[in-house]
């Protein structure tokens, strides 16, 4: 009755064998490496770069332990941390700024393991060190910005088609335009509908005025916010690339949030600076007509004249700027720091895209002699970088921004403009940083807890249940093996709470074996034969084990669903641990018992520890 068919033993051996393969990469350790990536994420790297890298390293006598070429990156393994830094400088110098060179650690496991997807466990930031940011995207601003853009487009189109209108303005996400005649309104509506067919319209007649309200539909709003998030993600990707981080994670979370994880980044200040800069560039006209001392005085007291806003330039001078935005940073295709040939000042040279060039040309032509202001909006603070007088029409889309404090600032602003502006401002609402030494400490702590906990259980089980204790312990070891193999295979993120969950799962999983062993003892106590006791013991314990594991599983799933960050790390391991323990504690341990006892016809006694029996029962 206690016999397994061959396929069951085969299944056990197969799963153990597979697990052993998937566990091995964890024991090979890691090499220092550098990773070369193209500046724009998504671009491919040419194989010729590989040869350049190889020859440069040879020239500098830097021995590489292996070059790995992937379409999206080149990885070079190096001997030491020192070589790693040297190699980084050498390669950065030789490849120029079209590539990003990042420091990385690469598993030493042999290629054939990597090829079958056997990788070491994926360590979370609390174990490998790095920064985690959760960023909140301000979608209201994105919506307002787009509405502003529509207003601009509507004005341009109406003017182009010579439809008379007056007083076009926006209020949050509603645009209002007044027309003189009904015919104008009708024509205007048709033109506006061409800009975006999803606009909703509302017509009103007030005091002989034809009022048209343009309401942005929910569908459009949705696509605006989706686009904003998408663009922010892309911008972040570019910015992170500029930082040179190997294996960054940039993902949308929920409706309006973005998670950024940068393993190995230690200079958090720099990272925040680059990521968090919500620098938006806007060009607007200075309102020269209304810029009289009285108006400025009132504006300083919080009452700027209608249609204007008050900002300060870098010398704390108040400037009245029109609310209407001519151009934003989105129209910029390239930006770089340079030096003005006449003044010797640091400037940023920008190139505008086609539409941007046209708008800029038109605006400069119409406003010769007036001032145009360049606004930099950061963290809700708007600053006028410069407000030069337009001397003549500027075509070709090449613009110089003067007023930079120094070369460093010119470089920084150029980088921000080049890497793309954010479609909507973002704010860091959660930060978790772990230093590299702390990560190593955490690994040691987690592993030590697991090992010593495991050792204690082994001693306890063997003393109490003798041979059945040994079998339980083998079952538990197999459970640990399965769990680690599974975590490696699916590349679940392992965190410190995850390590705690491994330890805890071991402590809890042994319950199944204890239940089984106790049931077998019960059966022997009741006078059953050893073989029958084993059989009944496993059968009777099964229901209980299932019940208790399902309830534990419910808790695990809740943790997974509602948990974030550290809790999720715990939950993943916990849930997987329950699954593997069911298999190992019941199926595998039964296999061992059957192998040891199943073929023996007569067993006098089971080695399951001393069983106390009430004689007169």
């Amino acid at each position, binding site marked *: 009755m206690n016999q397994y068919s061959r396929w069951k033993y085969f299944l056990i051996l197969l799963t153990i064998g597979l697990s052993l393969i998937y566990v091995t990469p964890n024991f090979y350790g890691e090499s220092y490496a550098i990773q070369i990536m193209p500046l724009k994420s998504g671009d491919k790297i040419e194989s010729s770069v590989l040869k350049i890298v190889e020859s440069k390293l040879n020239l500098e006598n830097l021995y590489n332990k292996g070059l790995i070429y992937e379409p999206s990156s080149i990885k070079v393994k190096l001997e030491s941390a020192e070589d790693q830094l040297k190699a980084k400088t050498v390669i950065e110098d030789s490849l120029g700024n079209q590539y990003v060179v990042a420091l990385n650690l690469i598993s030493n496991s042999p290629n054939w393991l990597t090829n079958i997807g056997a990788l070491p466990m994926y360590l979370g930031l609390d174990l490998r060190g790095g920064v985690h940011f959760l960023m909140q995207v301000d979608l209201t601003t994105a919506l307002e910005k787009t509405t502003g853009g529509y207003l601009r487009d509507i004005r341009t189109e109406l003017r182009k088609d010579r439809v008379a209108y007056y007083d076009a303005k926006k209020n949050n996400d509603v645009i209002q335009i007044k027309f003189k005649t009904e015919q104008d309104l009708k024509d205007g509506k048709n033109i506006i509908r061409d800009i975006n067919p999803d606009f909703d319209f509302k017509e009103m007649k007030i005091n002989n005025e034809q009022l048209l309200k343009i309401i942005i539909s929910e569908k459009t709003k949705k696509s605006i916010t989706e686009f904003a998030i998408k663009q922010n993600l892309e911008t972040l990707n570019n910015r992170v690339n500029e930082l040179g981080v190997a294996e960054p994670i940039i993902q949308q979370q929920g409706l309006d949030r973005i998670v950024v994880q940068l393993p190995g980044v230690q200079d958090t200040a720099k990272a925040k600076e680059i990521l968090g800069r919500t620098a938006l560039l806007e060009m607007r006209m200075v309102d020269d007509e209304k810029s009289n001392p009285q108006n400025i005085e009132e504006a300083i007291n919080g009452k700027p004249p209608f249609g204007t806003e008050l900002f300060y330039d870098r010398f704390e001078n108040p400037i009245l700027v029109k609310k209407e935005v001519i151009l934003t940073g989105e129209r910029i295709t390239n930006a770089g720091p340079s030096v003005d040939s006449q003044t010797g000042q640091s400037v940023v040279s920008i190139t505008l895209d086609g539409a941007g060039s046209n708008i800029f040309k038109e605006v400069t032509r119409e406003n010769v002699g007036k001032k145009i202001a360049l606004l930099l909006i950061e963290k809700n603070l708007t600053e006028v970088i410069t407000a030069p007088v337009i001397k003549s029409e500027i075509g070709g889309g090449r613009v110089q921004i003067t007023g930079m404090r120094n070369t460093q600032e010119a470089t920084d602003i150029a980088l921000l403009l080049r890497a793309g502006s954010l479609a909507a401002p973002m704010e860091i609402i959660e*930060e978790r940083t772990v230093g590299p030494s702390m990560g190593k400490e955490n690994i040691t702590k987690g592993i030590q807890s697991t090992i010593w*906990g*495991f050792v204690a259980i082994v001693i*306890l089980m063997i003393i109490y249940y003798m041979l059945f204790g040994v079998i339980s312990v083998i079952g538990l070891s197999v459970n640990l093996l399965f769990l680690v193999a599974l975590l490696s295979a699916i590349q679940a993120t392992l965190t410190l709470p995850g390590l*705690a969950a491994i330890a805890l799962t071991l402590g809890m999983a042994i319950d199944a074996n204890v239940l089984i062993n106790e049931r077998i003892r019960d059966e022997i106590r009741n006078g059953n034969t050893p073989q029958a006791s084993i059989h009944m013991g496993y059968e009777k314990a099964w229901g*209980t084990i299932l019940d208790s594991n399902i309830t534990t599983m419910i808790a695990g799933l809740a*943790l997974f669903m509602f948990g974030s960050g550290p809790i999720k790390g715990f939950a993943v391991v916990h849930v997987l641990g329950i699954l593997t323990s069911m298999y190992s504690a019941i199926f595998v341990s039964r296999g061992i018992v059957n192998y040891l006892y199943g073929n023996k016809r007569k067993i006098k006694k089971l080695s399951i520890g001393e*069983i106390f029996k009430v004689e007169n029962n």
Partner: protein
Amino acid sequence: MEFFRVKKDIPFMSYRKISVIISFAIFFFSVLFLFTRGLNLGVDFTGGTIMEVSYPQVANIESIRSTLDEIDIKDSQVQNFGTSKDALIRLPLTDNLSIADLSEKVASALRVKDSSVQIKRVESVGSQVGDELYEDGALAILFVCLGIMVYLWLRFEWRFAVAAIVANLHDVIIILGFFAYFQWEFNLTVLAAVLAVLGYSVNESVVVFDRVRENFRSPKMRRAKVTEVVDNAITRTMSRTIMTHLSTQTVVIAMLIFGGEILHNFALALTIGILFGIYSSIMVGCPMAIWLGTNQNNLAVTQTDQNKDNIDS
């Protein structure tokens, strides 16, 4: 080796009045502490910043405090953490500085004062996130309770489901009571421990209830009183109870010793949960089930159950 060499069943249920009184007392005090002292919520829930900093020499707490004063940061707390070389700085949320700027400002001020300082860990949580984590935590507890109740209701019957969940919540409240009384920090990791306890300690009830049901169905105990049936079930599962919890507790002790500060409160919550879990499933869950009227009739072998059991075995 056998721990329990009992000749007769231990009459656990004859102490149930005392145990219920004790439980009510502990429960009362736990709730009292929760209301008077409240939980010492970590930044995960309140929002705010903690920074763990490390020096090659003994950390000068006073100097850190004065540095914070110099850069005009109010309401901060500085204390040693783990070793004398490490310090933990707690900063509340401020209106004028974003969380990202706050930690950078403190870090740079500390570096100016003593360049050997190492920033080991920073955790900053905005108020919005904190509120959400708090809500999610409460939702998770609710979900677990409902999930377990529904499952036990289906597998056993409603009396057991209610009894088990009462015993379980009793443990949770006591863990929270301990955290409130000693003002240990309650953070996300501790919440994970509380939820793990919810799932784990219900096992104890399941095991005992399983035996109770088995006893009700067994011909030997047909004439036994309900309390006798329950006593027998508890006594016969005693060895398993001890072994299982001993195993889990040794792991938790290993965590207390080797796990460091981050896992310390996690392990503490588990320890309380495990100890009270044993007590509550026996001395709270079982009396509750009896009080709710569990007896042979509502757990007697019905036709469908009989069939199911045949399939099971």
